[in-house]
């Protein structure tokens, strides 16, 4: 039984974090927020700055332990939320601040 569980969970314990680390990418420019996430299913999301409604960072207990944060960029479309998990907390804060600034200076009605 132990071996069944061990072998069964091996992909999620070893392969998943590694592949996620290798795959995940993100970039905020003065035009758009962009992210690539996923493991078995890869997902690219792009949100134009003129449609951004909010930028926030979320930190769970485990993330706080490792000094990480999750960046969330929300738009009028719920499915369009650009999520960047596991970014260094300081970088995340700085990126959120910078993107918020760009958003403020970009005309657009966020819809």
């Amino acid at each position, binding site marked *: 039984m132990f071996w069944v569980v061990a072998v069964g969970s091996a992909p999620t314990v070893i392969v998943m974090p590694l592949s996620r680390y290798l795959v995940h990418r993100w970039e905020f420019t003065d035009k758009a927020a962009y992210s690539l996430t996923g493991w078995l299913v*890869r*997902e690219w*999301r792009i949100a134009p700055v003129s449609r951004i409604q909010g930028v926030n960072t979320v930190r769970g207990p485990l993330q706080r332990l490792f000094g990480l944060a999750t960046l969330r960029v929300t*738009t*009028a*479309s719920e499915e369009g939320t650009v999520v960047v998990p596991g970014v260094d907390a300081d970088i995340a804060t700085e990126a959120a601040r910078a993107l918020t600034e760009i958003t403020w200076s970009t005309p657009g009605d966020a*819809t």
Partner: protein
Amino acid sequence: MSSMSPPGAAEEIRSDSGRGPGPQSHAETDDVPWSRLDLRVVWVNLFGLLVSLVPTVVARVFFGVDADSGSFGLWPALIISSIGVTGTVLGLNRWWKTWYRITDDRVELITGRVVRTYRYVPRERIRTVETGARLRHRIARLRILEVGSGEKGSAFKLDAIQADEAERLRRELMGAHAEEDEGTDGPEPIAVLRRHWILYNATSMWAAAIGALLLFSAFWTFQVFAVDLRDVFRGLWDWDALGTLGSVLVGGLCLHLIGTVFLTIGFFKDRWGFRLERVRTDDGTVLRTREGLLRTREVNREDRRLRGMSVSQPLLGRWMGTTETEVVSTGLAAWTPGTDPPSIVLPKTSGKEARRVAGLILQDGICPLEAPLTPHPRAALYRRFGWAAVVSVIAAAAVKAWPVEEHWMTVVAVASPLFFLLAAIAYRSLGHTRVGPYVVTRWGLWSRTTVALQTRAVAGWRFRQSLAQRLFGLMSVGVLTAAGARHYKAPDMAVGDAPWFAGQTTPELLADFLVEDTTHRSAKREMRK
């Protein structure tokens, strides 16, 4: 009803102003009086209470039902009555604790006496105003007014106010309809109810399920009077002579008939006097629908928030061209309990009628919904065949594993080709293109949806690729927008075409993230890794 100030309302507002939109003071709006719901709501509710008590009284007095009769005794009657009593108490409570008013810049609502909630909608955020009435409201000349502000549900509901007051509020919030002021009959309607639309609206693959639900509720209704419908049906027919298969067929057919009759009645009840027209108001034009026999409904949709249109065709109605027509607008509630969402501008009609109406609504002569679409690569078909094979194998394995009768294997053997047929149908519905200012996509098996969305409404992209899609060289594209369903999809495009398509639609947005892939064919571009 009467204009009065709710006790302590003014102080509450002031203490609430911290949550308000900014520094503007309420001083100049404080003298706008607060209104209450109409007192007739109370009488309507009391009448409702009396009606809800009828089943219990009838069951007890005339049928002599008591705790020991039938399978459930007096309980069903008691439950119905207590639901009625609860509704009445809630209605009274609502009248008792609701105040509203319209000031120059916002609509305000206060509910509650002990715990007071204050809610406001800035007037420039109001996207739709909908008035409706059930039969009991119409007898009492009351209307339910719903204000939508672009959230998923309705932002604001006044249940209920006088019909005149509702009309006055609608005019004040949405601008008067020009033709009403001029006293003319108004413009030529875009569409009016046609009798033969019943064919499209009463034929449904779910009719049997609706019939079953009806019988289920009838079962409980008759339990009130200690009549067991199960015994009645057992006596109707010699079921044993029919055998299992025969009984299922006859039963299913009856259920289907009952459901169809119900749908027919429902169609005329909801759509009676249906009229779709474009009406001029103080600030622009609105698409207005009016309909309803017992329960009337009027929906106004501002044209300046129109971002496109969509039509969908159910799989089993496709042979007769059944089509549902919707507008894609910002600020329309996507889901409303109990009624069709306000985005549906036409009952189900023929495809031809839907195309005619779509052309009149969009007005630009482009007819994006009729544009020829680019089919998706063959790999998308193979991927769907893969799913059909997986489902067939699982079904066969399930029959093998469970100790069921041998002939179930035959059922699976017959069904398998059907799965592959469905896969092919699903593949054939895939398509996408760009026409003028529109991006058009089509997808769906049970309901094939074609959407034409203005490119200016595109508020982002989402590309997805599963393991299988990577194997087949496919990629699913999601068009994100603030309008309509918020998210429209173009599943299984070729990996090279997906970013190219998006890049063509919103070039300035994707330019930074696309890389030219020179190792493959020259036109191929990829999402940057």
